[in-house]
């Protein structure tokens, strides 16, 4: 079965640079979520989109923005990167008909800021 695809899998950036993370949800899933997981931390919700509209915002810094495109893929844009942004970034997708809490996570993008 198709799973959530994230790219790139690894990314190394320097402080103050920008980064773009991409997510391709499972086909026919209508909701996409972004989570950040720092070293030794629990996943933290950043932002979500339902049918290409922003649905909810969590602890997403103002330096970050995200959008969902007409083909349902989503991108997380991160600017003015800081050392503390080094983390695993997960994208998840779900279908509201199946239940919003049954989310399928991608493999993650490991971002390292030096």
């Amino acid at each position: 079965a198709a799973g959530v695809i994230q790219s790139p899998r690894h990314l190394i950036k320097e402080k103050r640079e920008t980064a773009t993370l991409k997510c391709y949800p499972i086909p026919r899933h209508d909701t996409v979520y972004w989570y950040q997981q720092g070293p030794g931390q629990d996943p933290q919700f950043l932002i979500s989109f339902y049918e290409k509209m922003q649905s909810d915002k969590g602890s997403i810094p103002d330096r970050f923005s995200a959008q969902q495109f007409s083909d349902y893929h989503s991108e997380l844009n991160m600017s003015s990167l800081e050392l503390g942004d080094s983390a695993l970034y997960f994208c998840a997708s779900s279908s509201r008909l199946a239940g919003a809490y049954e989310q399928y996570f991608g493999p993650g993008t490991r971002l390292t800021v030096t």
Partner: protein
Amino acid sequence: LAKTTQPISMDSYEGQEVNITCSHNNIATNDYITWYQQFPSQGPRFIIQGYKTKVTNEVASLFIPADRKSSTLSLPRVSLSDTAVYYCLVGAAYGGSQGNLIFGKGTKLSVKP
């Protein structure tokens, strides 16, 4: 989302049944209980979800008492590959829920040979 409390860590041996209990005293009427499993450097994986009584799938069972103030995830005959962090989440999973998962401190299960 209702606040949840679960043990920080648990140890077990291969072949044993493991029960992880989660307390959620402030669960609301339309809240569901959902459990996720996470291996190191991988995304969380949905295990099971329930509302009341007992739910069973090919991976685990979920026991929910009548007052719904707690729940128990049961993993039958664990193996080394079940070593992971297990998260209990409680919230309105249906009816237009936005669904953003709020992960608390999960239970780190270590299975030994």
